[in-house]
Every structure is written in C-alpha cells, then in structure tokens.
C-alpha cells in the first residue's frame, strides 16, 4: 500500500481538497506564476513611474509643491480641463546646451566603450584560455572592485588625479615634471573614471562568450593554412561578436547617463546629460524639464538596442 495515499485518506477531507487544489494550480499554472511575478514587479516599479515621468514632462513648471502643474483640473463649473504642453521638449531643441550635452554624452560613452573593448577583449581572452585555477583567481580579481562602494572608488580617483594628488606628486618626486599636470576636472579624468568603473561589465560577458569557444576551432583554422591574425579575424572575432555587443551595450547604456563620474571627476568642465538632468531637478527645481530630458535620454538609449535586436532577428532568419 502506498504510504502517501494512506496519509491522504486519513487527513481531513477539506484540508486535503484545498491542498490538492493548490498543487493542481501550481502544476498547471507554474509557468504563468514564474513569469508573472517579475512581470508584475516591472509593471509596478518601472512602467508606473515611467508613465508618471512622461506625465510630468508634459506639465508646466510652477512654484508649488509638487513643482509642476497638474495634468487635469476641474473648473468651477465642474468641467474637466486637461492641460498638456510640449514646451519642455521644444525647449531642449532650442537651447544648444541640451543638444551639446546629449552629443557629448554619447561621444564620451562611445569612446569609453571602445576603450573598454580594447582593454577588456584581450583580458577576457586570456582569462578564458588560462587553466582552471588561474581562471578562478583572475575572475575573482575582475569582480573584486565591486566589494568596495562605487562612490568610494571614484573618490579614490580624485585623490590620484588631483593637482597635488598621488600621480602628480610621484611624477614631480621622480623629476619627470616640474609642475603638476592638470588631470582632475577634465574630460580625460572622466574617461579614466568611466573606463575603470565599467571595465568588468565588458570583461564578464566577453568571458562568458569566449569560455564556450572551442579551442580546436583555432587549431582547425591554423591547420587549414590561416596565420594567427587571419584565424582571429575569420574565426575568433565573428564567434565572439555576441559577447562584444552584449559587453558594449552594458558599458554604453549606463555610461551615457552617468552622473557621478562627470560630476566628481569632470567638475564643471565636462558636459554630460546626467549632470544636466540632476541640475534641472535639484538646483533649478524644474521637474518638467528634467523629466523631458530623461525621456529623450531614454529614446537615445533605446534606439541602439532596437537596432541590435533587429540585426539579431535578421541573423537568426538567415540561419
């Protein structure tokens, strides 16, 4: 006699039936439940705030609390009046400051992404091709900086790059230079900060991609007469392209909207859209304009993602 069946018979019929019903529900609906929970989470904490931001971006800045005009009002006669203005968006086009900030942000993020790729690709390749013990240590070292606060690490760079900072003091002490080189509060400092901070985000997806790569493919290419450079260009590079794209997106997207690094390392000299947004929101208390800046930023960032997915879909169609 099956012991489970036996227990079912002796338990209370109502509890039994409820439990049975629950198990049935879980069994038939588990896919819906598994997908549903994160879906609900995104709906509540991403989509809803996003709609609120859109709403604010269509309002007018006023001195009140909250500092923007309401979307709809009930007039004295009880009629509903909806007020939507697009001035915030048109203002972004009219003032060079915003357009320049967007362009500068995309430029800085692009150059940083390329730098991360150039530094990260050989690193990821070496990690993926090293023996298992070394591999784990190297991966650990890549992840290690995350154990310290991001903000602290950026502050540390301020100490390194300042006029009287570590690097300048060392160079003067060595007699390489007589006067400190100006590094902090420049675009260079922002590049250093972004490349340093986002390098792991480039290395990790590249590593994951390269780890799966069969070493014998390199040998096969060599065996068929391909010199190492040709073998790299015709075999390794095309096969690591998904890793390159994933890593580049992971660096480019947050770097474009980066606020802390340009603020701390770039000072007032480096225009980036993250800082403009923060200024509009905090210093100017212009919530509607800040919201419009945010929405346009989102469009700038979503565009390359959509393009990437198009390309991927087309490639899959080719298979």
């Amino acid at each position, binding site marked *: 006699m099956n012991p489970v069946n036996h227990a079912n018979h002796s338990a209370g019929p109502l509890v039994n039936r409820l439990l049975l019903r629950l198990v049935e529900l879980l069994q038939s609906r588990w896919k819906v439940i598994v997908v549903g929970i994160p879906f609900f989470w995104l709906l509540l904490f991403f989509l809803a705030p996003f709609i609120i931001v859109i709403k604010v971006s269509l309002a007018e800045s006023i001195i009140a609390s909250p500092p923007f005009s309401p979307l709809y009002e009930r007039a004295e006669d009880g009629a509903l009046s909806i007020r939507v203005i697009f001035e915030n968006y048109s203002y972004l086009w009219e003032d060079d400051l915003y357009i320049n900030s967007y362009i500068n942000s995309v430029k800085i993020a692009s150059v940083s992404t390329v730098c991360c790729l150039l530094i990260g690709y050989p690193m990821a390749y070496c990690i993926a091709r090293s023996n298992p013990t070394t591999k784990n240590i190297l991966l650990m070292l890549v992840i290690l900086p995350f154990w310290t606060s991001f903000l602290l690490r950026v502050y540390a760079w301020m100490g390194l790059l300042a006029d009287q900072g570590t690097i300048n003091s060392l160079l003067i002490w060595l007699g390489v230079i007589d006067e400190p080189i100006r590094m902090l509060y420049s675009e260079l400092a922002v590049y250093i900060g972004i490349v340093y901070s986002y390098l792991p985000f480039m290395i990790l997806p590249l590593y994951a991609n390269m780890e799966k790569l069969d070493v014998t493919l390199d040998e096969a290419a060599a*065996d068929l*007469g391909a*010199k190492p450079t040709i073998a790299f260009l015709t075999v390794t590079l095309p096969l690591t392209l998904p890793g390159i794209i994933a890593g580049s997106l992971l660096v480019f997207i947050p770097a474009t909207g980066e606020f802390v690094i340009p603020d701390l390392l770039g000072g007032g000299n480096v225009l980036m859209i993250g800082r403009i947004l923060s200024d509009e929101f905090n210093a100017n208390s212009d919530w509607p304009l800040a919201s419009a800046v945010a929405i346009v930023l989102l469009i700038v960032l979503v565009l390359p993602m959509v393009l990437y997915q198009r390309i991927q879909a087309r490639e899959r169609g080719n298979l």
Partner: protein
Amino acid sequence: MSQQTNDSHRPWLDGDAEPFIKIRNVTKKFGEFTAVDNIDLDIYKGELFSLLGGSGCGKTTLLRMLAGFEPPSSGTIYIDGVDMTDVPPYARPINMMFQSYALFPHMTVEQNVAYGLKRDKISKDEITRRVDEILSMVELSDFIKRKPHQLSGGQRQRVALARALVKRPKVLLLDEPLGALDKRLREQTQFELINIQDDLGVTFVVVTHDQEEAMTLSTRMAMMDAGKFQQIGTPAEVYEYPESRLVANFIGSANMFEGRVSQSGPDHVIVASKALGVEFNTEHTNSIIEGTKVWIAVRPEKITLSKMPLDAITNQLKGVVVDIGYNGKTSTYRIRISNDQIIEVSVPSQKRPKGDRQLIDWDEEIYLNWDQSNAVVLMK
C-alpha cells in the same frame, strides 16, 4: 614481376624505399609526464597507418606533433624529406580531421570547405570548382548552404573530411574519425575512407582506440602504450603474431597459459605448466633458454571443442562449460579448466541447432584442443 607489384603495396619491406614521414627520437614531455617516449617511426607514401592504444598512451600527442600543434620536447619529424621542427601548423602540407570535427559554426558547409582554399590565394572559380567536386564526392551537394548545427553527425563528419581533403594535403591526419558515429554508419564510412584514400593516394595517419576500426582500415598499425610502440605491423601480423601479452589482449582477445620452457627445439618449444600439470607444444623458430618463464597465447577462435578426448594431441585441456554467449554468427563459450581459469572459445555457427537442444550445453564436460601452429609463445 608479381613480386614487384607486391612490394609496391608493401613499401616497408623494401629497404631502398624512402619513408614519407620520418619520426626520429621524438619525445614529448608535459611537465614531469612523458607522453611520447623517444620513438622512431617510418610511414610510407600512400599508407593508411593507424596509431592504436588506450587513452593516455600518447597516440593523440604524436598526431598533434605531426600537425604542428605541439612541438616535440626533443627529436625530429620529417615530412617528404623536410624537417618540420620550425614549420608552423599553417605552413605544413598536412590537414587534420578533428575528433570533434571542429567545423566553424558560423559558416555554411560551402564556406567551411572553402576556408582552406581561400587561405591559399586560389582564384574564385577554382575554389568553387574544387568545393563542388569534393562535396559531390562525399555526397553533400544538396547541403552546401546549411550550417553545421543543421546537419546530422554523419553529415558533419563528411564535411570535416571534405574540408581536410579539399586542399589535397600530402598527409591527412584523422583523430578518432569514426568515434562519434553509430555502428552501421561507422562500418559504411570505414569503406568510404579506404576508397577515398585509394583514389587520392593521400597518406593517412589515423588515431583510434578501436582495434576493429584499426584492423579494417590500416595497411599497417602501431600499438602504443605508455608513450612507446609495443608493436608495428600489418593487421594480420599484429593479430596472428603478437609480441607481448599487452598486444595480444588489446588487439582481439587471447587465452594465456603461464609456464616454463622445458624443451626448445629448432621449430618448436615445449612449455610445462605447473598449475595445469600439462605440457604445451608450440611452433616457435627462435630457441629459448630452458626454464624461462613464458606465456602461451591462443585466440578464442583457434580452439576447437570436442565432447570426447582426441588421441595423440598434446595441446588438450579438459573443462566445464560455465557460460554460452550466442552472437549469431558465432557462439562464445566460457569454459572453466582445472586451475579455475576461464577459457574463452569462439565457435562459428556453421550448423543450425536442432530444436531447443544446444550442440554443447551448460555444465557439460568438454575437451579443448588447438593445433601447435595456432598458439604463440610470448616472452613478456
């Protein structure tokens, strides 16, 4: 005249023939581990040579040294008279078919096969022509636009073969070429490989752990163990005249009887087995000092069974049938003899058993006999 044609098929017997691949004093060490231990080997043009052995015997390392993926720790490899020591893999007149096939997953069948030709700066028309030609030879013309993951195992194997052959290498290396195929496909492909090799006259060097595969394919084979060659010869030589217990056991199976030489004549050796209390008379041309410990090896199919003892036969043992395995074309009998050793005997199924009565039954007392020419004396 007929002698000459014979020799052209057996270049290793001709003292004047120049070997196509010469391996001289080659050793390969990985740290403390010696994978290949000071070996010499000659392989002649047009041979289909198999390197046979268990895993870790050094056969794959030797193949990788031929391809140029591993440099020898010491020693020299010559191919077609050229010292290969400083020649990188991409410049060697060798192509390899990898065990995993190593097809480029992002390229179509056509692109995979054309890859090697493109590296040689050959004209586009010529590339297309040669790719088409080789793909029709391996019967894959209908699949040129497919990618490797859209092919079956057998098709992938044929793409790998086509890719390795299309450059018309002087030597083709094959690493466990048929390992990933099922039995039917394997047997079919074995003969295809032999035909291709015959047609193109390329020298094949095959690494395999499958002794049947090696025997079917090879002109000669080398049995490797612990980085050294145990025996080199034609499949028939190695099977019929193994030089050690290791070879006798690895290639086919063999029954071994331990004993000491009691008499050594010009054409035979008599070996006394204390455990069995009998003497074995075996053909052997080299004399062995009396008292030397040797082993008599007899293949299962070389033993005959009889229900009654035969007269005047020295190589006769008595035993009890403990197991019968019916394989269709043969039956394998496992027979326990007086010292509890189990002897394997393979009997062809020439007669159909009548009714459910076996010719020889379980627990039956039986006599084993073999002719003195059918056993081998092994010194190690």
